Every structure is written in structure tokens, then in C-alpha cells.
């Protein structure tokens, strides 16, 4: 395996793993306040699934010769990236719906092609993840549907969440094709099979009819199907904010890293205890043998 290819794979897989782990936070924030026990159970299971996805992906990256500890260090020292979308806060319950519908939706569009990625362990992890993600997306849709058809206040909450998350979710596909050098390289290596703009078009095409069912509006007055070009016309994306968030100046960048670092450091004595205990047990077994 060429070294550049291996490095790109590690970067991509660990970045994806980190995104799952950091992505637990914006939703984890609502577990304690979920408004019904059923929703609490669904949300808890979802955030727990994200931990599971992180685990598979770290394992896939480990097959390429990097340790989980190393990747964790990179994350908490801000030397590794994760999806910037998780640097936005989740001020209302409706964000649980919008994240499921829009963020998970965009993630699926990005990820489904990866299930056929040329590197086997990554591809296999992705098959499992994509299955669960589409389940999550449906749950997000359901949350929004319930809110949209609920009290006027609930409907407003749903619309505002969609307004908040629509543009950031479109940005998840990355910069336009003509400004995306990494992406071209990944396509050449068949790690990636569609361009950013292709995937973004596909995503919007999926959203439009669903928004209609939801009774919610996508916050782009210029959004319409262009028969001639056979694509969706849309307003130009304002990348300023995206670049701010990427540069670490999003609302919650600092909080996300602090949260992860605290969990890691406060758990150090527990991991040490487990290691020491395992070591003692092994020594005892050796002595008994």
C-alpha cells in the first residue's frame, strides 16, 4: 500500500471516527431533558450508536497501523479534524430532529458511496454504519413531523431548527468541486466516488419532497428544479461562517474539545486500574500454569 494512500486513509477514517465521537455531544446534551420517555430511549440509543460507530472506525484505522490512544491524543490536542457541523450548539429539542434529518441525511449521502471504498475494513465498517444512520435519519424526520404537526410553538421550534441546520448541512459536502483538491485526489484513488457538488445535488433532491411532507420550508428562496440543466438551482452558499468554524472560531469548538479532554483525563485512573488488574490477573495465571 503506497504510503500517501495509507496516510490519506488514516486521515479520512480517523476524522470520521472523531466526528462520531464529538457528534455524541450536541445530542447527548438533550438526553436528560428529552420530552417523553420514548424519545429519551430513542435518543439514548442513537448517541450510543455513535459511540459504536466511533469504535468500528477506530478499529478500521488501527488496521492501518495507528493506535486508538494516538488518535485520541490527536483529537484532544486539536491536531485532528472532525466534522465542523458539531461545533454548533443545540439550543432546542427540535435540533434533535434537524440533526437527524439534515446532518445524518447529508452524512449518508456522503457515506453510502464509501461502502464500496477500495479499502475493505473501511468499506465494511461503513456498511454497518450507513444502515444505522438511515435509521437515525428516519427518527429525525419523525421528530420534526411530530413537532410540525404539534402546537404552534412546536411547529415554530421545528422550522427554526431547520433554518439553523439547512445551510450547515449543505456545507458538509465540502467546498465546490473547483476548489477541492483533496477531493479530486480521493476520487482518483477511488476512496471517494462522487464529487462534492454531485452529492450536494443528490441531497437537496432528497430533501425537497420530504420537506413538503413535513410541512416545513427549506430556507432558500431561490431553490427550484432547473429542467434544462437537470439540476437544482440554489442560492450561493455563504462560506464565510464555514471558514470561521473550520478555523476554530465556531460557537462550540472549544467546548467540544474540552468535554472530550475532560472525559479522557478524568477516566485515566479507571483505565490504569483496568490495565493494572489485567496485568495482575495475567501474572496470576502464569504463576498457576
Amino acid at each position, binding site marked *: 500500500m503506497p504510503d500517501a494512500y495509507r496516510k490519506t486513509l488514516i486521515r479520512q477514517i480517523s476524522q470520521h471516527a472523531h466526528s462520531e*465521537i464529538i457528534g*455524541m*455531544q450536541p445530542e*447527548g446534551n438533550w*438526553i*436528560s*431533558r*428529552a*420530552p*417523553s*420517555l*420514548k*424519545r*429519551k*430511549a430513542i435518543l*439514548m*440509543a442513537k*448517541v*450510543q450508536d455513535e*459511540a*459504536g460507530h*466511533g*469504535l468500528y472506525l*477506530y478499529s478500521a484505522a488501527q488496521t492501518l497501523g495507528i493506535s486508538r490512544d494516538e488518535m485520541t491524543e490527536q483529537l484532544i490536542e486539536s491536531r485532528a479534524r472532525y466534522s465542523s457541523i458539531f461545533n454548533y450548539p443545540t439550543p432546542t*429539542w427540535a435540533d434533535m430532529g434537524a440533526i437527524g434529518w439534515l446532518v445524518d441525511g447529508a452524512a449518508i449521502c456522503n457515506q453510502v458511496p464509501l461502502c464500496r471504498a477500495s479499502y475493505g475494513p473501511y468499506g465494511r465498517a461503513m456498511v454497518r454504519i450507513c444502515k444505522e444512520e438511515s435509521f437515525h435519519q428516519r427518527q429525525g424526520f419523525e*421528530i420534526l413531523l*411530530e*413537532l410540525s404537526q*404539534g*402546537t404552534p*410553538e*412546536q411547529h415554530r421550534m421545528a422550522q427554526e431548527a431547520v433554518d439553523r441546520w439547512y445551510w450547515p448541512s449543505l456545507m458538509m459536502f465540502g467546498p465546490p468541486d473547483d476548489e477541492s483538491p483533496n477531493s479530486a485526489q480521493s476520487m482518483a484513488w477511488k476512496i471517494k466516488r462522487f464529487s462534492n457538488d454531485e452529492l450536494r445535488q443528490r441531497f437537496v433532491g432528497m430533501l425537497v419532497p420530504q420537506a413538503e411532507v413535513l410541512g416545513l420550508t427549506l430556507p432558500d428562496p431561490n431553490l427550484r428544479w432547473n429542467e434544462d440543466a437537470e439540476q437544482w438551482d440554489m442560492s450561493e452558499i455563504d462560506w464565510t461562517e464555514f471558514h470561521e468554524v473550520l478555523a476554530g472560531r465556531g460557537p462550540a469548538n472549544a467546548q467540544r474539545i474540552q*468535554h472530550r479532554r*475532560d*472525559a479522557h483525563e*478524568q*477516566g*485515566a*485512573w*479507571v*483505565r*490504569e*486500574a*483496568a*490495565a*493494572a*488488574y489485567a496485568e*495482575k490477573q495475567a501474572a496470576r495465571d502464569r504463576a498457576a500454569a
Partner: protein
Amino acid sequence: SEDVAEYALRLGDDALILSQRLGWWISRAPELEEDMALGNIALDLLGHARSLLHYAGTASGRSEDDLAYWRDEPEFRCAWLFQQPNGDFAHTIARGVIASAYMQELYTALSTSTDATLAAIAAKAVKEVAYHRDHAVQWTLRLAGGTEESRARMLVALTDTWPYTDELFRDDALTERLAGVVPAPSSLRPAFDEVLGAVLAEAEIAEADFTNRKIGQSSGGGRHGNHSTHLGPLLAEMQVLARRHPGATW
């Protein structure tokens, strides 16, 4: 009957409050495997809580959510053990090992109840609780037998948590009226002591290591609505959204 409903409420509240506590760990556990394990336990307990609260509310026409979100603190029936804060990981494990060893005996006995619904709920729960107990026992052994620090923390955690044990096993008028339908709490104690005793022996922990001669068992009071100071803030957070939207569905 009203008595069975009240009894189901006690068990449902125990499970609900412990689940609420454990949910906090998701994204904060010492390792990813524990985010998942504690999340699993929280989910199982939430499942038990939903079944029990659903059953408790049937007679009075209240839903599981009516009971979880619209009762005030004095109407809750959970024992103090389940209200205890997460503390450090050792406190969560100490609470977990006592809670799961108790629940294991409880649900085992309850699974042969003459009340078919309670029996069915218990029969399902007992399998999951066996896993919870195993999880807590394994960690008790690891922490007690790990490093000097982890052992010291485990002993402090047991010292802090132990006073809330007795309340779980106290008979009262309700459980006496339900004799024959549900196990007397006190009848679960010998098996609990045996299990816990074996764990502590393996962990090389003596009772004197975690009992304080000057601090005995808390009189508690959760079964009759008298709660520890930890419950109020927990309920404030748990109920805030639902209460801001009366009549809404989610």
C-alpha cells in the same frame, strides 16, 4: 389494584431515576466501551421504567409520561440509593453493584408473582439485570484490585453508598398488604448479602473497610415521598421541557 399500582410505581421510579443518572455518562465515560456499556444499562433500565410506569398508571388512566413528567417530587417513590449522584466512576460502580444485586434478587422473586403483568415484566428484566450486575461486579474487582488510587476510590465510594442499602430491604404496610403477590423486601436480603459478600471477598474488601461506626444506615424515606436533596435538581432538569409545553405530544 391500587396497591399493585403503588408497588409498580416504586420499582418504576427506581429504574427511571437510575437510568436518568446513568444517561449522563454517555459521552463522558472513561473509555468508549463504557460509554456503550453504561448507555446500555441506562437503556435497559429506562425500558423497565416504561413498562412499570405504564402498568402503574393503567388503573388511574395516566400514561408513563404523565407519571414521569407531571408528578412533583413528593409523589415519586424511588429509594435514596437510586438518587445518589454519579460521583466519580467508582461511585457509579458502587451504586451499580448494590442496585443490580438487589434488583437481581427482586426480579427473580417477582418473576413468579401471581400478578401476571409484574411477573412478565420481571422475567424480562431479570435477564438484563444479570448483565448489569456482572458489569458492576467486574468493575468492582478491577477497581479494588487495580491501582492503589483505584482501590482507595472504590472504598470511599462504598463508604458513601453503603448507607442507602437498608432502605431497599425494608418491609412496610404496602408490601405486607401485597404478601403473596410480591416478595417481602426483607426476604431478599440473605441472597443479596451472599452475593455481595462473595464479591467483596474476592475483592479482598472487609466490611470494616467501608462502614463507618458513626454513620449507620440512612433512614431514607423515598418509598413515602421523602427524598434526598439530590432528587429535586434531577427532576427539574428531567421535566423542564415537557412541562413547558403542557398538552403537547412529541
